[in-house]
């Protein structure tokens, strides 16, 4: 790059940045209150749109001048809908409110915005240090996180490119355009960034391989085909801060010498598709994409491809087939996509999180990134921690933090005084780890060693009421459905694994089933081509390894220790505890299996009962009379009085 063109790049970007700064200052210096509402899919699912509407109506009704700022997701899913109110005139700092439904929104508008009372009973915390309200940064859920990729998520409006630029966005791209591609690749290599899609291949190395393919046309693909049920960080990033991903893609394309890039997003994420499409259009309008980016000689065109929902398409060769318009079936590697990918052109495929890590790395430097995380895996990991955990949601932590810290300190542990049983990491390809592994540091290598894997970052926490055999059956059901059918072992092997597990959960297990599961699993691993088949038996193998006693109880005692496998349990009412005349269980039973005994207590008609457990939920805690037993023949016999004939 010559100095003259560098000057031109600076000039063009300066003008854009000034505009962004102007807009930001206008917003900041507005003395009126500001309401930030999180409007990503999870917020909307919890009712954030109604909350927004309620605020708008209330502002009208009480004649309040305030700005509503729609932002993405902060990752605190347990608290959605999340609203941050910044009301400088009241003398309070910006305040974080959780679970703001429409009613709460109206109340806050009237009492806080109009009358200046922040309603302390609804306050979650302040967004900055102050003397009046404890700051959210005092909570482990906030201060133990280290945000690199998600730093701006939830703070900026994803549909406004200027919001991102005002916070330093696209400055890494400017920096990139002034360097040559070797320098960029070197920087990424020095940072030690590893692909965040699951396998952990060094990103810089991948770029270098693609670059060495020479002058021919190349393609960059951003893999946002997040098929793992229970993981949604890619969607959140695209919905909350699409420009960081686009900037990462642009840097990658520049480094490897590509002029075309594709974002492969699941069609099941309509909001993410809309936001990304809009973001690309905005970037083109400002000259940050398209022909001669920022006046340089670099061209880049980004398309959005909507994936149609096949788990296997997360595998790179299957993803390529899918874009080409065929069934998404993986093929042999080599040739690797960096040599021969989409339409036989060298193709770099990176995950959303990988690409979103690139701009901060170039901004702060490789050494800064190396200091976060561990020696072998620098940087941060994003997990969607869900299941039986108090503070579910997205958590970004430095690599190397232990599972115990993540689950118990940051996410608040297990709700309802239950005991921790297992954590399932990496979705259907990952494994279930028991208590022994709670002190395992989280990084690619130690998780793989333990039998799980980093995978996409889905983490499901399970309490003592979860049956490990049933969970394995669930994951096998998923992988069996999603197997593309190319390899015999994956197609037929997973089917038989599933059939055996189904038998076990029905109480029809036989001696030798565990051994059969183990042999079959090993064969499937050996006989499958792609990651799906190679890892599909992981949930089975790890759960047998760490929870063998549960499998044995299912087979030899026909008993489900966690009382979860429905064919193996039965419900009854403890007649000493059941209250006379209380009808809570009878009215809510969806199949009318609850009857009243001759002394006006309750019994369960075992023939009718579907074991949904609703009676346990509604039985008032002062009686707590519903009991579950396994195996079902242990249930005490309670006589059902003959049905009275209705008198006409």
């Amino acid at each position, binding site marked *: 790059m010559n100095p003259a063109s560098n000057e031109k790049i600076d000039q063009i970007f300066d003008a854009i940045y000034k505009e962004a700064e102007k807009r930001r200052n206008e917003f900041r210096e507005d003395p009126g209150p500001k309401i930030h509402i999180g409007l990503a899919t999870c917020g909307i699912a919890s009712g954030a749109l109604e909350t927004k509407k309620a605020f708008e109506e209330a502002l009208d009704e009480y004649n309040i001048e305030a700005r509503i700022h729609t932002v993405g997701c902060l990752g605190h899913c*347990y608290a959605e809908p999340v609203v941050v109110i910044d009301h400088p005139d009241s003398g309070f700092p910006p305040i974080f409110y959780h679970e703001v439904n429409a009613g709460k929104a109206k109340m806050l508008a009237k009492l806080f915005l109009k009358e200046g009372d922040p309603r302390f009973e609804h306050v979650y915390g302040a967004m900055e240090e102050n003397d009046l309200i404890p700051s959210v940064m005092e909570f482990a859920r906030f201060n133990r996180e280290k945000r690199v990729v998600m730093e701006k998520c939830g703070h900026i409006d994803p549909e406004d490119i200027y919001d991102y630029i005002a916070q330093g966005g696209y400055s890494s791209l400017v920096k990139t355009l002034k360097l040559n591609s070797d320098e960029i690749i070197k920087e990424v290599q020095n940072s030690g960034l590893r692909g965040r899609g699951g396998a952990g291949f060094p990103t810089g190395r991948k770029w270098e391989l693609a670059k060495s393919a020479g002058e021919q046309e190349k393609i960059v693909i951003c893999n946002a085909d997040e098929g793992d049920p229970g993981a949604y960080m890619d969607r959140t990033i695209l919905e909350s801060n699409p420009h960081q991903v686009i900037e990462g893609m642009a840097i990658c394309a520049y480094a490897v010498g590509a002029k075309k890039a594709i974002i492969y997003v699941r069609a099941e994420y309509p909001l993410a598709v809309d936001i990304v499409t809009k973001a690309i259009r905005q970037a083109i309008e400002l000259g940050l994409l398209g022909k001669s980016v920022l006046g340089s000689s670099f061209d880049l065109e980004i398309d959005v491809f*909507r994936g149609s929902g*096949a788990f296997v398409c997360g595998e790179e060769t299957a993803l390529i087939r899918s874009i080409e318009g065929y069934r998404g079936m993986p093929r042999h590697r080599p040739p690797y996509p960096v040599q021969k990918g989409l339409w036989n052109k060298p193709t770099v495929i990176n995950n959303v999180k990988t690409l979103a890590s690139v701009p901060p790395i170039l901004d702060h430097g490789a050494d800064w990134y190396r200091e976060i995380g561990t020696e072998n895996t620098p940087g941060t990991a994003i997990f969607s921690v*869900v299941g039986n955990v108090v503070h579910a949601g997205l958590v970004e932590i430095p690599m190397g933090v232990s599972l115990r810290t993540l689950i118990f300190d940051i996410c608040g542990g297990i709700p309802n005084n239950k005991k921790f049983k297992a954590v399932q990491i990496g979705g259907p390809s990952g494994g279930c780890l028991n208590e022994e592994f709670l002190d395992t540091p989280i990084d690619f290598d130690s998780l793989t060693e333990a039998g799980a894997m980093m995978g996409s970052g889905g983490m499901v926490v399970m309490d003592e009421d979860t049956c490990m055999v049933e969970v394995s059956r*669930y994951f096998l059901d*998923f992988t069996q459905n999603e197997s593309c059918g190319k390899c015999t072992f994956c197609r037929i092997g997973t089917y038989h694994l599933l059939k055996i597990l189904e038998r076990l959960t029905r109480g029809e297990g036989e001696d030798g089933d565990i051994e059969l599961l183990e042999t079959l699993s090993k064969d499937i691993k050996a006989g499958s081509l792609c990651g799906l088949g190679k890892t599909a038996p992981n949930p089975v193998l790890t759960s047998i390894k760490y929870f063998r006693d549960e499998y044995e109880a299912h087979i030899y005692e026909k008993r489900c220790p966690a009382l979860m496998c429905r064919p193996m349990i039965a419900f009854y009412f403890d007649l000493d505890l059941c209250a006379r005349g209380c009808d809570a269980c009878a009215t809510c039973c969806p199949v009318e299996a609850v009857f009243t005994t001759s002394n006006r207590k309750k019994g369960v008609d075992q023939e009718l009962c579907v074991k949904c457990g609703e009676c346990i939920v509604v039985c008032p805690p002062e009686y707590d009379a519903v009991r579950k037993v396994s195996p079902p023949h242990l249930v005490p016999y309670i006589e059902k009085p003959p049905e009275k004939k209705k008198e006409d």
Partner: protein
Amino acid sequence: MNQELTPEEKEALKHVASKLEFYEEQRRNLIPILQMVQETLAYLPPEAIKLVAEHLAIFECEVYGVATFYNQFRFHPPGKHPIKACLGTACHVRGGDIILENFERKLGIHAGETTPDREFSIEKVACVGCCALAPVAIIDETVHGHMAPSKVEGLLMRIEIEKEMEERAKKKDESGQ
């Protein structure tokens, strides 16, 4: 089982045919085309598959091969009130299958089917991404979090009542005129 297209669907099919002109005859356009057809018709009837195959000059079985591979594509018309029961990991751990079963029992159909009056259809989905609200069901476009078996009946009843009220209002309008 091949259902006749309704007059509206026939109209929509013509619309699809005209839209096809915007897509080049290239294999890479197959999935985007199928997505467009489903957006217009809500499912992929055999008539539409034929159109697509002709447009791209490939066999119908090729189109079926791709369409059946992906979970997104549907071959039955959905009900007026589509119900999606989430069976992602978090929902499963919290009893998502029980919710699905309740819907199936109440409506008398299985997942992937539509009630004969085309009012309701049930679909299984793998994670809608609101794991913190598990178990989750989506009726029409509304997400219902923290589902319970007893909530199922109430939700279905609400739709019935709304329908009845609409009909009554309609009758009132008619008699008023």
